[in-house]
C-alpha cells in the first residue's frame, strides 16, 4: 500500500473572508492544566454544496462523518469538550464562511469548526475546514484538503490536527497510524499477529497470519517499513516488513537471537539487542543489513535501546547494577551514564520525539508508565493498573500509548494517556492488543 500524500490547499473555493492574524487570537487551550477546563468547541455537520455519490459514499453523509471524526479526535485529546454533529443542527453551505455567531455564543462553545465536503470532477474530494473564535467572532485558521475518496478519513484527521495545533500550540498527531500485536487465544498459547490501524482504530488490517509469534513492531520514520521480532522457523530474529510489498527480510543473519529493534530517527540504522552465549548487548546495524556494530559490552542485560530525536544519543535499560535501570550513552556507545535512581526497576525507555522526556515502564509492585527528563530528573508516573507496559509516543510528544495486561487472564489491550496522566483512554482494537508503536505524522 503506497501512502498517499494529502494535498493541502488554501481554500479559495468560497468567497474570501477576512483572515485573522494569529497574533490577534484571543483563545488558547491550556495544555498543562489537563482536563480541569477542557475547551467547549462546536463541530456541526459539514454541508456539501451539492450532494453527490462518491466512492466513499454520498457527500452529505461524509460531511457528517468528517465532523464526527473531528469531534472524536478532539475529545480523545482530553483538551476539548466537543459539541458534535449529533448534538447540533446542521448549518447551511452559505454559513460555512459566515457563522451565526449569536447562536454559537448561546451554545457555550468558545470555538467553532465549520467546513464542507465537495466531490470534484476528477473523482477527488475536497474537505474544507474553518476554525472560528466564537467570542471574538473571528476566523482563526482555514485549511482545505484534496484527497482520493478512500482517504477521506485522513482529511478529517488533518482538519482536527489543524484545529488542535492552532488552539494548543502543540504539534499535530491525529493523522497517524499505529502498528501493534493483535492477540487472541489462551494465555499459554497466545496467537499473535502484526496489525496496523489508524490511531483511532479505523482502517484496521492484519499483516501476518499468526503462524509465528511476533513481537515489538516499530515503524521506520517514513512509515514504509516496520521492524519487528518473529519466531519464524523457531529462530527468534528481527525482521523488516515492507509495508508496500509485504516482503519480510531477516536483518541480521547468524546463530544469535536478535530482538528489541528500533529505527534511528533518520531511518539509516536499526538499533537492536543480540544475545551471545547468554549475554545481551545493544548493537547497531544499517537498516539495509550488513555487519552489526556492538555498542555495549557489560556482562549484564543491555536492551531496549531508543535514539534521541537528533540521533546523537541512545537511552537503554541495563541490569548491570543488579536490577533494570535506565542509562544514556552517545550514539557510538561512549559515555554510558545511569539516569534512573528511584526505588524499583525501570524498563522500556523511549525518547520523546520532542527530545524533552523519556517514557518508561516502572516495575514496582506492578508496572506503571512514567516519564522523566533525559537527565533523570522530574520523574512522573502517569498510570496505575496491575501491568502497564511498553509506552510509545505520539509524534507531538504529548500522548503515550501502551498496553495493559489483566491480572490472571493475561489479556492485554491498548490504552493511551497524555502527559497530565489524567486523560486515560482505551484504544479500540478488534481483538486483544499489545506492543503498540505510534507512527510519525503522515505527509
Amino acid at each position, binding site marked *: 500500500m503506497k501512502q498517499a500524500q494529502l494535498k493541502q490547499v488554501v481554500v479559495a473555493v468560497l468567497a474570501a473572508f477576512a483572515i485573522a492574524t494569529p497574533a490577534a487570537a484571543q483563545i488558547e487551550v491550556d495544555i498543562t492544566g489537563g482536563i480541569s477546563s477542557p475547551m467547549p468547541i462546536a463541530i456541526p455537520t459539514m454541508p456539501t454544496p451539492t450532494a453527490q455519490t462518491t466512492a466513499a459514499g454520498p457527500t452529505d453523509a461524509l460531511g457528517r462523518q468528517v465532523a464526527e471524526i473531528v469531534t472524536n479526535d478532539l475529545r480523545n485529546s482530553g483538551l476539548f469538550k466537543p459539541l458534535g454533529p449529533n448534538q447540533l443542527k446542521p448549518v447551511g453551505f452559505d454559513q460555512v464562511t459566515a457563522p451565526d455567531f449569536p447562536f454559537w455564543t448561546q451554545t457555550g462553545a468558545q470555538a467553532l469548526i465549520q467546513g464542507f465536503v465537495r466531490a470534484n470532477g476528477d473523482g477527488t474530494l475536497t474537505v474544507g475546514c474553518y476554525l472560528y473564535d466564537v467570542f471574538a467572532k473571528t476566523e482563526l485558521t482555514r485549511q482545505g484538503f484534496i484527497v482520493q475518496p478512500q482517504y477521506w478519513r485522513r482529511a478529517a484527521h488533518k482538519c482536527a490536527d489543524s484545529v488542535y495545533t492552532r488552539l494548543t500550540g502543540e504539534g499535530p498527531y491525529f493523522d497517524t497510524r499505529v502498528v501493534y500485536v493483535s492477540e487472541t487465544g*489462551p*494465555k*499459554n*498459547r*497466545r496467537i499473535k499477529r502484526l496489525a496496523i490501524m489508524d490511531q483511532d482504530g479505523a482502517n484496521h488490517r492484519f499483516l501476518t497470519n499468526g503462524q509465528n*509469534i511476533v*513481537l*515489538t513492531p516499530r515503524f521506520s520514520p517514513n512509515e514504509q517499513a516496520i521492524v519487528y*521480532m518473529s519466531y519464524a522457523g*523457531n*529462530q*527468534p530474529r528481527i525482521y523488516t516488513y515492507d509495508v508496500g510489498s509485504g516482503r519480510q527480510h531477516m536483518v541480521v543473519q547468524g546463530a544469535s*537471537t536478535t*530482538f*528489541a529493534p528500533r529505527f534511528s530517527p533518520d531511518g539509516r540504522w536499526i538499533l537492536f*539487542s543480540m*544475545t551471545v*552465549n*547468554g*549475554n*545481551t548487548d545493544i548493537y547497531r546495524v544499517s537498516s539495509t543489513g550488513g555487519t552489526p556494530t556492538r555498542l555495549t559490552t557489560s556482562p549484564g*542485560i543491555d*536492551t*531496549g535501546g531508543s535514539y534521541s530525536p537528533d540521533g546523537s544519543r541512545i537511552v537503554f*535499560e541495563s*541490569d548491570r547494577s543488579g*536490577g*533494570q535501570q535506565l542509562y544514556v550513552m552517545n550514539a557510538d556507545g561512549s559515555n554510558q551514564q545511569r539516569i534512573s535512581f528511584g526505588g524499583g526497576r525501570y*524498563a*522500556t525507555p523511549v525518547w520523546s520525539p520532542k527530545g524533552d522526556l523519556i517514557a518508561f*515502564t516502572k*516495575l514496582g509492585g506492578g*508496572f506503571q508508565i512514567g516519564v522523566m527528563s533525559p537527565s533523570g530528573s522530574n520523574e512522573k508516573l502517569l498510570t496505575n493498573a496491575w*501491568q502497564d*507496559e*511498553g509506552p510509545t509516543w505520539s509524534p507531538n510528544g504529548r500522548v503515550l500509548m501502551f498496553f495493559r*495486561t489483566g*491480572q*490472571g487472564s*493475561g489479556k492485554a489491550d491498548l490504552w493511551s494517556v497524555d502527559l497530565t496522566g489524567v486523560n486515560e483512554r482505551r484504544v479500540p482494537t478488534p481483538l486483544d492488543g*499489545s*506492543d503498540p508503536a505510534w507512527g510519525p505524522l503522515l505527509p
Partner: protein
Amino acid sequence: MLKTTTKLIMAASLIAIAGCAKKAPEQLPPPPPTETAPPQATPAPVDTGNVGSTVVPGSREDFLQKVQSDRVHFALDSSDLDGESRAILDSQAQWLNQYGNVRITIEGHCDERGTREYNLALGERRANAAKNYLAAAGISASRINVISYGKERPEATGSDEASWAQNRRAVTVIIG
C-alpha cells in the same frame, strides 16, 4: 485319570466360589494351556508408557523416563542453578552421555512479572545457564541449541506465586 481331573476342577471351583464370599483371590489362576491360539477377542494392549520394553532407548520418551526432570526452575529474576537443579541436570547429562547422537534444545522461560524484551534476555540467560552446566558435565555444546520464549509461553496460567514459580524454567527438549 479323566475323572480325577474333573473332580479336582470342581473342587477348585467350589473353593474359588467360597473364597469369593470371604475375599477376592490375590491372584487369578493362569489360564489352562491350549494347543490352538484363541481368536483375538480383545484389542492389543495400548502402550501406556509403563512398560520399559516399549520405549525406544534414546528417544524423547526414554529421556523423560530416565531423568529426574526435563526442567529446572529459577528464583525471581535469577538464572542461578540451585542444588536440586544441578541434580536434575546431572541426570540429564548422564542420559545425554549415554546417547551421544541426540541433540537438544533448551527453552528458557520467564514469569509474567518482567517486561517483554528483558524477559527475552533473561530466558536466554536461563537456557544458557543450563547449557553451560551440561557442557561442563561433558555434553558437547554443539549438541545444545537454546531458545528464549521470555514470558510468551507460560506453563501455569495463574497470576500467583505458585504459577510464577512454575513458569520460571529451562526445559530440555529432545530434538533427535
